[in-house]
Protein backbone atom coordinates (compact mmCIF):
# COMPACT_ATOMS: atom_id res chain seq x y z
CA UNK A 1 0.00 0.00 0.00
CA UNK A 2 1.49 3.32 -1.10
CA UNK A 3 1.43 6.06 1.52
CA UNK A 4 0.21 9.55 0.67
CA UNK A 5 3.73 10.93 0.55
CA UNK A 6 4.74 8.33 -2.03
CA UNK A 7 1.81 9.36 -4.21
CA UNK A 8 3.19 12.91 -4.18
CA UNK A 9 6.71 11.69 -4.98
CA UNK A 10 5.74 9.67 -8.03
CA UNK A 11 3.53 12.34 -9.63
CA UNK A 12 5.07 15.12 -11.68
CA UNK A 13 6.72 17.27 -9.04
CA UNK A 14 6.10 20.56 -10.74
CA UNK A 15 2.41 19.82 -11.01
CA UNK A 16 0.03 21.91 -8.96
CA UNK A 17 -1.31 20.21 -5.85
CA UNK A 18 -3.55 22.85 -4.31
CA UNK A 19 -4.81 26.34 -5.05
CA UNK A 20 -6.07 28.16 -1.96
CA UNK A 21 -6.26 31.85 -0.97
CA UNK A 22 -4.70 32.92 -4.28
CA UNK A 23 -1.67 30.75 -3.58
CA UNK A 24 -0.59 27.76 -5.53
CA UNK A 25 1.18 24.84 -3.88
CA UNK A 26 2.90 22.41 -6.22
CA UNK A 27 4.11 18.92 -5.36
CA UNK A 28 7.74 19.97 -5.03
CA UNK A 29 6.80 22.78 -2.59
CA UNK A 30 4.95 20.22 -0.50
CA UNK A 31 7.85 17.76 -0.45
CA UNK A 32 10.30 20.56 0.44
CA UNK A 33 8.16 21.61 3.36
CA UNK A 34 7.90 18.00 4.55
CA UNK A 35 11.64 17.45 4.24
CA UNK A 36 12.40 20.68 6.00
CA UNK A 37 10.18 19.76 8.94
CA UNK A 38 11.11 16.15 9.51
CA UNK A 39 11.96 16.82 13.15
CA UNK A 40 8.57 18.41 13.75
CA UNK A 41 6.78 15.46 12.20
CA UNK A 42 8.94 12.92 14.06
CA UNK A 43 7.35 14.08 17.30
CA UNK A 44 4.18 12.34 16.20
CA UNK A 45 5.77 9.01 15.31
CA UNK A 46 3.47 6.19 16.48
CA UNK A 47 1.32 8.72 18.35
CA UNK A 48 -2.44 8.99 18.18
CA UNK A 49 -3.13 12.47 16.93
CA UNK A 50 -6.22 14.69 16.73
CA UNK A 51 -5.79 16.91 13.67
CA UNK A 52 -7.83 20.13 13.61
CA UNK A 53 -6.54 22.02 10.56
CA UNK A 54 -6.98 25.77 10.03
CA UNK A 55 -6.95 25.57 6.23
CA UNK A 56 -7.07 23.03 3.43
CA UNK A 57 -3.33 23.61 2.89
CA UNK A 58 -2.62 22.68 6.52
CA UNK A 59 -4.88 19.64 6.34
CA UNK A 60 -3.22 18.41 3.19
CA UNK A 61 0.36 18.88 4.43
CA UNK A 62 -0.31 17.40 7.86
CA UNK A 63 -2.06 14.39 6.34
CA UNK A 64 0.84 13.71 4.00
CA UNK A 65 3.24 14.07 6.93
CA UNK A 66 1.27 12.00 9.44
CA UNK A 67 0.02 9.19 7.18
CA UNK A 68 2.45 6.32 7.67
CA UNK A 69 4.00 8.05 10.69
CA UNK A 70 1.25 8.44 13.30
CA UNK A 71 -0.52 5.43 14.77
CA UNK A 72 -3.89 7.06 14.19
CA UNK A 73 -5.24 10.42 13.04
CA UNK A 74 -8.59 11.73 14.19
CA UNK A 75 -9.62 14.41 11.69
CA UNK A 76 -11.91 17.14 13.00
CA UNK A 77 -13.27 20.32 11.50
CA UNK A 78 -12.16 23.63 13.00
CA UNK A 79 -15.83 24.31 13.73
CA UNK A 80 -16.31 21.25 15.96
CA UNK A 81 -17.67 22.35 19.36
CA UNK A 82 -15.04 22.12 22.08
CA UNK A 83 -16.98 19.66 24.25
CA UNK A 84 -17.39 17.38 21.24
CA UNK A 85 -13.67 17.56 20.52
CA UNK A 86 -12.98 16.43 24.09
CA UNK A 87 -15.44 13.57 23.86
CA UNK A 88 -14.04 12.43 20.48
CA UNK A 89 -10.47 12.58 21.77
CA UNK A 90 -11.39 10.47 24.75
CA UNK A 91 -13.27 7.90 22.68
CA UNK A 92 -10.55 7.56 20.07
CA UNK A 93 -7.56 7.82 22.39
CA UNK A 94 -6.09 10.51 20.08
CA UNK A 95 -4.84 12.70 22.90
CA UNK A 96 -2.17 14.74 21.09
CA UNK A 97 -3.71 17.69 19.27
CA UNK A 98 -2.31 19.28 16.11
CA UNK A 99 -3.92 22.63 15.44
CA UNK A 100 -0.89 24.64 14.33
CA UNK A 101 -0.19 25.53 10.69
CA UNK A 102 2.22 23.23 8.91
CA UNK A 103 5.56 25.08 9.20
CA UNK A 104 7.15 26.65 6.09
CA UNK A 105 10.51 25.60 4.67
CA UNK A 106 13.01 26.59 7.35
CA UNK A 107 16.77 27.08 7.42
CA UNK A 108 17.19 24.19 9.82
CA UNK A 109 19.78 21.44 9.53
CA UNK A 110 17.62 19.39 7.21
CA UNK A 111 18.18 20.39 3.65
CA UNK A 112 14.95 21.12 1.73
CA UNK A 113 16.39 19.74 -1.47
CA UNK A 114 16.96 16.39 0.17
CA UNK A 115 13.39 15.35 -0.25
CA UNK A 116 14.16 11.67 0.15
CA UNK A 117 15.22 12.38 3.71
CA UNK A 118 18.18 11.09 5.63
CA UNK A 119 16.27 8.84 7.93
CA UNK A 120 17.69 10.82 10.84
CA UNK A 121 14.31 11.37 12.45
CA UNK A 122 11.92 9.15 10.56
CA UNK A 123 12.44 5.66 9.23
CA UNK A 124 11.33 6.70 5.79
CA UNK A 125 10.82 3.28 4.35
CA UNK A 126 9.09 1.77 7.36
CA UNK A 127 5.55 3.01 7.33
CA UNK A 128 2.88 2.42 9.91
CA UNK A 129 -0.58 1.53 8.54
CA UNK A 130 -2.11 4.64 10.07
CA UNK A 131 -5.72 4.45 11.23
CA UNK A 132 -7.82 7.34 9.99
CA UNK A 133 -10.75 8.29 12.20
CA UNK A 134 -13.61 10.40 10.88
CA UNK A 135 -16.91 11.37 12.52
CA UNK A 136 -20.13 10.53 10.66
CA UNK A 137 -22.20 13.50 9.53
CA UNK A 138 -24.68 12.93 12.35
CA UNK A 139 -27.68 13.33 10.02
CA UNK A 140 -29.55 10.88 12.18
CA UNK A 141 -28.32 11.90 15.63
CA UNK A 142 -25.06 12.24 17.52
CA UNK A 143 -22.05 11.83 15.23
CA UNK A 144 -20.16 8.59 15.68
CA UNK A 145 -16.49 7.95 15.03
CA UNK A 146 -15.61 5.58 12.22
CA UNK A 147 -12.22 4.01 11.85
CA UNK A 148 -10.73 3.60 8.37
CA UNK A 149 -7.36 3.08 6.78
CA UNK A 150 -5.92 4.64 3.65
CA UNK A 151 -6.86 1.57 1.63
CA UNK A 152 -10.53 1.70 2.59
CA UNK A 153 -10.68 5.45 2.02
CA UNK A 154 -9.11 5.32 -1.42
CA UNK A 155 -11.02 2.28 -2.67
CA UNK A 156 -12.84 4.28 -5.34
CA UNK A 157 -9.98 6.69 -6.08
CA UNK A 158 -8.60 6.59 -9.61
CA UNK A 159 -4.82 6.30 -9.29
CA UNK A 160 -3.91 6.83 -12.96
CA UNK A 161 -1.59 9.81 -12.59
CA UNK A 162 -1.04 10.42 -16.30
CA UNK A 163 -4.74 10.81 -16.86
CA UNK A 164 -5.30 12.49 -13.50
CA UNK A 165 -2.70 15.16 -14.23
CA UNK A 166 -5.20 16.74 -16.63
CA UNK A 167 -7.84 17.14 -13.94
CA UNK A 168 -8.47 20.13 -11.69
CA UNK A 169 -10.90 19.27 -8.93
CA UNK A 170 -13.08 21.90 -7.31
CA UNK A 171 -13.58 21.47 -3.58
CA UNK A 172 -17.06 22.33 -2.33
CA UNK A 173 -17.16 20.02 0.67
CA UNK A 174 -15.56 20.49 4.04
CA UNK A 175 -12.32 18.54 3.47
CA UNK A 176 -12.31 17.21 7.04
CA UNK A 177 -15.55 15.33 6.38
CA UNK A 178 -15.87 12.08 4.49
CA UNK A 179 -16.98 13.52 1.13
CA UNK A 180 -14.41 16.33 1.14
CA UNK A 181 -11.67 13.94 2.15
CA UNK A 182 -12.57 11.76 -0.83
CA UNK A 183 -12.07 14.72 -3.18
CA UNK A 184 -8.79 15.63 -1.48
CA UNK A 185 -7.49 12.05 -1.68
CA UNK A 186 -8.59 11.80 -5.31
CA UNK A 187 -6.51 14.88 -6.12
CA UNK A 188 -3.43 13.70 -4.21
CA UNK A 189 -3.47 10.06 -5.37
CA UNK A 190 -4.69 10.82 -8.87
CA UNK A 191 -1.96 13.38 -9.55
CA UNK A 192 -4.51 16.18 -9.99
CA UNK A 193 -4.88 19.73 -8.70
CA UNK A 194 -7.41 20.77 -6.07
CA UNK A 195 -9.08 24.18 -6.07
CA UNK A 196 -10.41 25.55 -2.80
CA UNK A 197 -12.81 28.46 -3.50
CA UNK A 198 -12.59 31.52 -1.25
CA UNK A 199 -16.18 32.10 -0.33
CA UNK A 200 -18.34 29.02 -0.05
CA UNK A 201 -21.55 30.85 0.76
CA UNK A 202 -22.02 32.58 -2.58
CA UNK A 203 -22.64 30.26 -5.55
CA UNK A 204 -21.92 33.03 -8.10
CA UNK A 205 -18.44 33.63 -6.65
CA UNK A 206 -17.75 29.90 -6.48
CA UNK A 207 -18.63 29.40 -10.14
CA UNK A 208 -16.55 32.42 -11.21
CA UNK A 209 -13.55 31.19 -9.25
CA UNK A 210 -13.88 27.69 -10.73
CA UNK A 211 -14.05 29.11 -14.24
CA UNK A 212 -11.00 31.31 -13.58
CA UNK A 213 -9.04 28.34 -12.23
CA UNK A 214 -10.13 26.01 -15.02
CA UNK A 215 -11.86 23.55 -12.73
CA UNK A 216 -12.92 20.63 -14.92
CA UNK A 217 -13.90 18.07 -12.29
CA UNK A 218 -16.40 18.63 -9.54
CA UNK A 219 -18.01 16.54 -6.87
CA UNK A 220 -21.07 17.92 -5.07
CA UNK A 221 -24.35 16.94 -3.49
CA UNK A 222 -27.54 17.22 -5.57
CA UNK A 223 -28.55 20.22 -3.41
CA UNK A 224 -25.23 21.94 -4.19
CA UNK A 225 -25.60 21.17 -7.90
CA UNK A 226 -29.07 22.73 -7.94
CA UNK A 227 -27.70 25.84 -6.29
CA UNK A 228 -24.92 26.06 -8.88
CA UNK A 229 -27.45 25.52 -11.67
CA UNK A 230 -29.15 28.75 -10.61
CA UNK A 231 -26.03 30.82 -11.27
CA UNK A 232 -25.61 32.84 -14.43
CA UNK A 233 -22.20 31.51 -15.49
CA UNK A 234 -22.74 27.85 -14.67
CA UNK A 235 -22.71 26.64 -18.27
CA UNK A 236 -19.33 28.32 -18.82
CA UNK A 237 -17.62 25.93 -16.44
CA UNK A 238 -15.30 23.64 -18.41
CA UNK A 239 -16.60 20.55 -16.63
CA UNK A 240 -15.59 17.11 -17.88
CA UNK A 241 -16.19 15.09 -14.71
CA UNK A 242 -19.28 15.60 -12.62
CA UNK A 243 -20.01 13.56 -9.58
CA UNK A 244 -23.05 13.62 -7.32
CA UNK A 245 -23.17 12.13 -3.85
CA UNK A 246 -24.45 12.41 -0.31
CA UNK A 247 -28.11 12.70 -1.26
CA UNK A 248 -30.40 10.96 -3.69
CA UNK A 249 -29.61 11.99 -7.26
CA UNK A 250 -32.95 12.47 -8.99
CA UNK A 251 -33.49 11.91 -12.70
CA UNK A 252 -34.49 15.52 -13.25
CA UNK A 253 -31.11 16.80 -12.05
CA UNK A 254 -29.15 14.12 -13.90
CA UNK A 255 -30.96 15.04 -17.12
CA UNK A 256 -30.40 18.74 -16.56
CA UNK A 257 -26.65 18.25 -15.99
CA UNK A 258 -26.43 15.93 -19.01
CA UNK A 259 -27.99 18.65 -21.18
CA UNK A 260 -25.60 21.33 -19.94
CA UNK A 261 -22.52 19.12 -20.24
CA UNK A 262 -23.35 16.60 -22.97
CA UNK A 263 -19.77 15.38 -23.46
CA UNK A 264 -18.93 15.01 -19.79
CA UNK A 265 -18.82 11.95 -17.58
CA UNK A 266 -21.57 12.12 -14.95
CA UNK A 267 -21.50 9.72 -12.02
CA UNK A 268 -23.65 9.49 -8.98
CA UNK A 269 -22.08 7.85 -6.03
CA UNK A 270 -23.66 5.99 -3.20
CA UNK A 271 -21.41 6.19 -0.19
CA UNK A 272 -21.65 5.92 3.54
CA UNK A 273 -18.98 6.95 6.01
CA UNK A 274 -19.44 3.62 7.74
CA UNK A 275 -18.82 1.54 4.63
CA UNK A 276 -15.86 3.53 3.36
CA UNK A 277 -17.11 4.11 -0.12
CA UNK A 278 -20.03 2.33 -1.74
CA UNK A 279 -20.48 2.26 -5.45
CA UNK A 280 -20.83 4.48 -8.50
CA UNK A 281 -23.56 4.62 -11.13
CA UNK A 282 -22.46 5.96 -14.50
CA UNK A 283 -25.41 5.55 -16.85
CA UNK A 284 -26.93 8.98 -16.04
CA UNK A 285 -30.01 7.29 -14.65
CA UNK A 286 -31.36 7.62 -11.12
CA UNK A 287 -31.09 4.63 -8.77
CA UNK A 288 -28.94 1.64 -9.67
CA UNK A 289 -29.37 -1.45 -11.85
CA UNK A 290 -30.87 -4.43 -10.02
CA UNK A 291 -28.09 -6.48 -11.62
CA UNK A 292 -25.66 -4.90 -9.10
CA UNK A 293 -26.96 -7.40 -6.53
CA UNK A 294 -25.71 -10.36 -8.55
CA UNK A 295 -22.77 -8.65 -10.27
CA UNK A 296 -21.66 -5.82 -8.01
CA UNK A 297 -19.18 -3.08 -8.94
CA UNK A 298 -15.57 -3.67 -7.82
CA UNK A 299 -14.74 -4.14 -4.12
CA UNK A 300 -18.28 -3.99 -2.82
CA UNK A 301 -21.26 -6.29 -2.37
CA UNK A 302 -24.82 -5.02 -2.39
CA UNK A 303 -27.93 -6.49 -0.82
CA UNK A 304 -31.46 -5.49 0.09
CA UNK A 305 -33.05 -6.60 3.37
CA UNK A 306 -36.56 -7.99 3.57
CA UNK A 307 -37.67 -4.55 4.86
CA UNK A 308 -36.29 -2.89 1.74
CA UNK A 309 -33.14 -1.50 3.32
CA UNK A 310 -29.95 -1.27 1.34
CA UNK A 311 -27.12 -3.40 2.71
CA UNK A 312 -23.50 -3.03 1.66
CA UNK A 313 -20.40 -5.02 2.43
CA UNK A 314 -16.90 -3.92 1.60
CA UNK A 315 -14.67 -6.53 0.07
CA UNK A 316 -11.47 -4.72 0.98
CA UNK A 317 -10.17 -2.49 3.72
CA UNK A 318 -11.81 -2.06 7.03
CA UNK A 319 -14.14 0.39 8.71
CA UNK A 320 -15.76 0.10 12.11
CA UNK A 321 -17.31 2.27 14.79
CA UNK A 322 -15.25 3.30 17.76
CA UNK A 323 -16.71 2.96 21.26
CA UNK A 324 -20.22 2.34 19.93
CA UNK A 325 -22.29 -0.81 19.88
CA UNK A 326 -21.58 -2.30 16.47
CA UNK A 327 -25.24 -3.16 15.85
CA UNK A 328 -25.34 -2.54 12.17
CA UNK A 329 -21.90 -3.95 11.54
CA UNK A 330 -22.42 -7.21 13.34
CA UNK A 331 -23.90 -9.08 10.43
CA UNK A 332 -20.92 -10.84 8.85
CA UNK A 333 -19.51 -7.56 7.57
CA UNK A 334 -22.78 -6.41 6.02
CA UNK A 335 -23.66 -2.83 6.91
CA UNK A 336 -27.29 -1.78 7.15
CA UNK A 337 -27.20 1.65 5.55
CA UNK A 338 -30.62 2.70 6.86
CA UNK A 339 -31.51 3.79 3.32
CA UNK A 340 -34.71 2.43 1.84
CA UNK A 341 -34.81 1.23 -1.76
CA UNK A 342 -37.60 0.10 -4.04
CA UNK A 343 -37.41 -2.18 -7.06
CA UNK A 344 -39.17 -0.75 -10.13
CA UNK A 345 -38.61 -2.77 -13.28
CA UNK A 346 -34.91 -3.60 -13.49
CA UNK A 347 -33.70 -0.79 -11.23
CA UNK A 348 -33.60 0.02 -7.55
CA UNK A 349 -34.59 3.57 -6.60
CA UNK A 350 -33.77 5.30 -3.35
CA UNK A 351 -36.72 6.28 -1.18
CA UNK A 352 -34.86 7.98 1.68
CA UNK A 353 -33.78 7.28 5.21
CA UNK A 354 -35.66 4.68 7.19
CA UNK A 355 -36.06 6.95 10.19
CA UNK A 356 -36.72 10.20 8.32
CA UNK A 357 -40.31 9.25 7.65
CA UNK A 358 -43.29 11.55 8.23
CA UNK A 359 -46.13 9.85 10.06
CA UNK A 360 -49.53 10.80 8.64
CA UNK A 361 -52.13 9.07 10.74
CA UNK A 362 -49.90 6.01 11.13
CA UNK A 363 -48.90 5.87 7.50
CA UNK A 364 -45.25 6.58 6.73
CA UNK A 365 -44.18 9.08 4.09
CA UNK A 366 -40.58 9.39 2.93
CA UNK A 367 -39.85 13.09 2.36
CA UNK A 368 -37.47 12.27 -0.46
CA UNK A 369 -40.10 10.34 -2.40
CA UNK A 370 -42.33 13.42 -2.38
CA UNK A 371 -39.35 15.69 -3.13
CA UNK A 372 -38.45 13.66 -6.18
CA UNK A 373 -42.01 13.82 -7.45
CA UNK A 374 -42.00 17.62 -7.08
CA UNK A 375 -38.57 17.96 -8.67
CA UNK A 376 -39.78 16.20 -11.78
CA UNK A 377 -41.69 19.38 -12.45
CA UNK A 378 -39.03 21.17 -14.45
CA UNK A 379 -39.80 24.57 -12.96
CA UNK A 380 -38.76 23.73 -9.41
CA UNK A 381 -35.15 24.42 -8.41
CA UNK A 382 -35.21 22.98 -4.92
CA UNK A 383 -37.69 21.53 -2.49
CA UNK A 384 -37.78 20.39 1.08
CA UNK A 385 -40.58 18.15 2.33
CA UNK A 386 -41.24 17.80 6.04
CA UNK A 387 -43.92 16.96 8.54
CA UNK A 388 -46.04 19.61 10.21
CA UNK A 389 -47.68 18.72 13.51
CA UNK A 390 -51.40 18.24 13.16
CA UNK A 391 -53.95 17.56 15.89
CA UNK A 392 -55.99 15.25 13.68
CA UNK A 393 -53.45 12.99 12.04
CA UNK A 394 -50.26 13.58 13.99
CA UNK A 395 -48.42 15.06 11.05
CA UNK A 396 -49.18 16.41 7.60
CA UNK A 397 -46.86 16.65 4.62
CA UNK A 398 -45.64 20.17 3.82
CA UNK A 399 -43.29 21.21 1.03
CA UNK A 400 -41.09 24.30 0.77
CA UNK A 401 -40.53 25.18 -2.88
CA UNK A 402 -37.87 27.31 -4.57
CA UNK A 403 -39.30 28.15 -7.99
CA UNK A 404 -37.16 28.76 -11.07
CA UNK A 405 -36.70 32.49 -11.67
CA UNK A 406 -39.71 34.07 -13.39
CA UNK A 407 -42.16 31.28 -12.64
CA UNK A 408 -45.69 32.27 -11.72
CA UNK A 409 -46.40 30.83 -8.28
CA UNK A 410 -50.09 30.05 -8.61
CA UNK A 411 -49.57 28.34 -11.95
CA UNK A 412 -46.63 26.34 -10.63
CA UNK A 413 -48.64 25.39 -7.57
CA UNK A 414 -51.34 23.75 -9.65
CA UNK A 415 -48.75 21.99 -11.83
CA UNK A 416 -47.11 20.52 -8.70
CA UNK A 417 -50.45 19.58 -7.21
CA UNK A 418 -51.68 17.76 -10.28
CA UNK A 419 -48.32 15.98 -10.59
CA UNK A 420 -48.54 14.82 -6.97
CA UNK A 421 -52.20 13.82 -7.39
CA UNK A 422 -51.19 11.72 -10.35
CA UNK A 423 -48.18 9.99 -8.78
CA UNK A 424 -48.64 9.90 -5.02
CA UNK A 425 -51.14 8.31 -2.65
CA UNK A 426 -53.36 10.99 -1.06
CA UNK A 427 -51.68 10.97 2.35
CA UNK A 428 -48.28 11.50 0.70
CA UNK A 429 -49.32 14.60 -1.24
CA UNK A 430 -48.17 17.85 0.33
CA UNK A 431 -51.13 19.42 2.11
CA UNK A 432 -49.37 22.76 1.79
CA UNK A 433 -46.90 24.22 -0.64
CA UNK A 434 -44.86 27.13 0.64
CA UNK A 435 -42.90 29.21 -1.85
CA UNK A 436 -39.60 30.31 -0.34
CA UNK A 437 -36.55 32.16 -1.70
CA UNK A 438 -34.00 29.61 -0.57
CA UNK A 439 -33.59 26.39 1.37
CA UNK A 440 -30.76 26.02 3.83
CA UNK A 441 -27.99 23.59 3.04
CA UNK A 442 -25.93 22.03 5.84
CA UNK A 443 -22.11 22.18 5.96
CA UNK A 444 -22.12 18.66 4.51
CA UNK A 445 -24.12 19.92 1.52
CA UNK A 446 -27.40 18.27 2.31
CA UNK A 447 -30.80 19.87 2.71
CA UNK A 448 -31.14 21.04 6.31
CA UNK A 449 -33.95 18.87 7.64
CA UNK A 450 -36.49 20.49 9.92
Amino acid at each position, binding site marked *: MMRLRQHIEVAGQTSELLFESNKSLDRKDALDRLASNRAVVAEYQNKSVTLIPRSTTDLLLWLIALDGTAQSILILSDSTPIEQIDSFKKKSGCRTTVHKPFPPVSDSLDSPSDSKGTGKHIHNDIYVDTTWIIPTSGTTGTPKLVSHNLESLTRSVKMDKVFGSQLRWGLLYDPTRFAGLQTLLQSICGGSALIQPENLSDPDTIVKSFIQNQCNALSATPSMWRRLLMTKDFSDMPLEFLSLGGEIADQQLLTMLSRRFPDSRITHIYASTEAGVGFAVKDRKAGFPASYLATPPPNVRIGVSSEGQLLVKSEKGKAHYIAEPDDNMANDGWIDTGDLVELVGDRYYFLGRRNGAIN*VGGRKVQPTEVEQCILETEKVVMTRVYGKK*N*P*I*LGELVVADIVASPGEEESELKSIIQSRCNELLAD*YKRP*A*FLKFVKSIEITPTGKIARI
Partner: protein
Amino acid sequence: MNIRQEIETSYREACKNRNIEVPESLEDDMVLLESGLDSLGFAVLVTDLEMKLGYDPFTLMDEPVYPRTFAELFSVYERFKDRAQK
Protein backbone atom coordinates in the same frame (compact mmCIF):
# COMPACT_ATOMS: atom_id res chain seq x y z
CA MET B 1 -61.22 39.16 10.55
CA ASN B 2 -64.44 37.27 9.99
CA ILE B 3 -63.83 33.79 11.40
CA ARG B 4 -66.96 32.30 9.93
CA GLN B 5 -66.03 33.49 6.47
CA GLU B 6 -62.44 32.18 6.80
CA ILE B 7 -63.70 28.77 7.91
CA GLU B 8 -66.13 28.63 5.00
CA THR B 9 -63.44 29.55 2.49
CA SER B 10 -60.96 27.02 3.89
CA TYR B 11 -63.64 24.37 4.03
CA ARG B 12 -64.47 24.85 0.37
CA GLU B 13 -60.77 24.77 -0.56
CA ALA B 14 -60.24 21.57 1.42
CA CYS B 15 -63.18 19.94 -0.35
CA LYS B 16 -61.86 21.06 -3.71
CA ASN B 17 -58.39 19.69 -3.01
CA ARG B 18 -59.83 16.36 -1.98
CA ASN B 19 -62.05 16.25 -5.06
CA ILE B 20 -65.19 16.33 -2.96
CA GLU B 21 -68.30 18.10 -4.16
CA VAL B 22 -68.59 21.37 -2.26
CA PRO B 23 -71.99 21.86 -0.59
CA GLU B 24 -73.79 24.86 -2.03
CA SER B 25 -74.45 26.46 1.30
CA LEU B 26 -72.78 25.58 4.58
CA GLU B 27 -75.62 25.29 7.05
CA ASP B 28 -75.10 25.27 10.81
CA ASP B 29 -76.54 21.78 11.21
CA MET B 30 -74.48 20.20 8.43
CA VAL B 31 -72.81 17.08 9.89
CA LEU B 32 -69.10 17.32 9.11
CA LEU B 33 -68.50 13.58 8.66
CA GLU B 34 -71.43 13.37 6.29
CA SER B 35 -70.27 16.31 4.22
CA GLY B 36 -67.72 14.09 2.51
CA LEU B 37 -64.60 15.56 4.10
CA ASP B 38 -62.54 12.67 5.46
CA SER B 39 -59.98 12.85 8.28
CA LEU B 40 -57.17 13.82 5.93
CA GLY B 41 -59.32 16.63 4.50
CA PHE B 42 -60.26 17.71 7.98
CA ALA B 43 -56.61 17.66 9.10
CA VAL B 44 -55.71 19.86 6.15
CA LEU B 45 -58.56 22.22 7.00
CA VAL B 46 -57.33 22.61 10.58
CA THR B 47 -53.75 23.35 9.52
CA ASP B 48 -54.94 25.76 6.84
CA LEU B 49 -56.98 27.65 9.40
CA GLU B 50 -54.06 27.68 11.82
CA MET B 51 -51.98 29.43 9.18
CA LYS B 52 -54.73 31.90 8.34
CA LEU B 53 -56.07 32.65 11.81
CA GLY B 54 -52.87 32.21 13.78
CA TYR B 55 -54.10 29.57 16.22
CA ASP B 56 -55.12 25.94 16.41
CA PRO B 57 -57.94 25.46 18.92
CA PHE B 58 -57.44 21.69 18.97
CA THR B 59 -54.01 22.01 20.52
CA LEU B 60 -55.15 24.78 22.88
CA MET B 61 -58.11 22.96 24.47
CA ASP B 62 -57.62 20.99 27.68
CA GLU B 63 -60.35 18.46 26.92
CA PRO B 64 -60.38 17.30 23.34
CA VAL B 65 -63.58 18.28 21.56
CA TYR B 66 -64.24 17.06 18.06
CA PRO B 67 -66.95 19.14 16.46
CA ARG B 68 -69.78 17.25 14.86
CA THR B 69 -71.57 19.96 12.96
CA PHE B 70 -70.45 23.03 11.13
CA ALA B 71 -71.83 25.23 13.93
CA GLU B 72 -69.77 23.33 16.50
CA LEU B 73 -66.66 23.72 14.38
CA PHE B 74 -67.30 27.44 14.17
CA SER B 75 -67.85 27.72 17.94
CA VAL B 76 -64.57 25.92 18.71
CA TYR B 77 -62.72 28.53 16.67
CA GLU B 78 -64.79 31.34 18.17
CA ARG B 79 -63.96 30.15 21.69
CA PHE B 80 -60.18 30.41 21.26
CA LYS B 81 -60.01 33.46 19.02
CA ASP B 82 -58.28 35.50 21.75
CA ARG B 83 -55.32 33.11 21.57
CA ALA B 84 -54.49 34.07 17.99
CA GLN B 85 -50.78 34.67 17.47
CA LYS B 86 -51.13 37.34 14.84
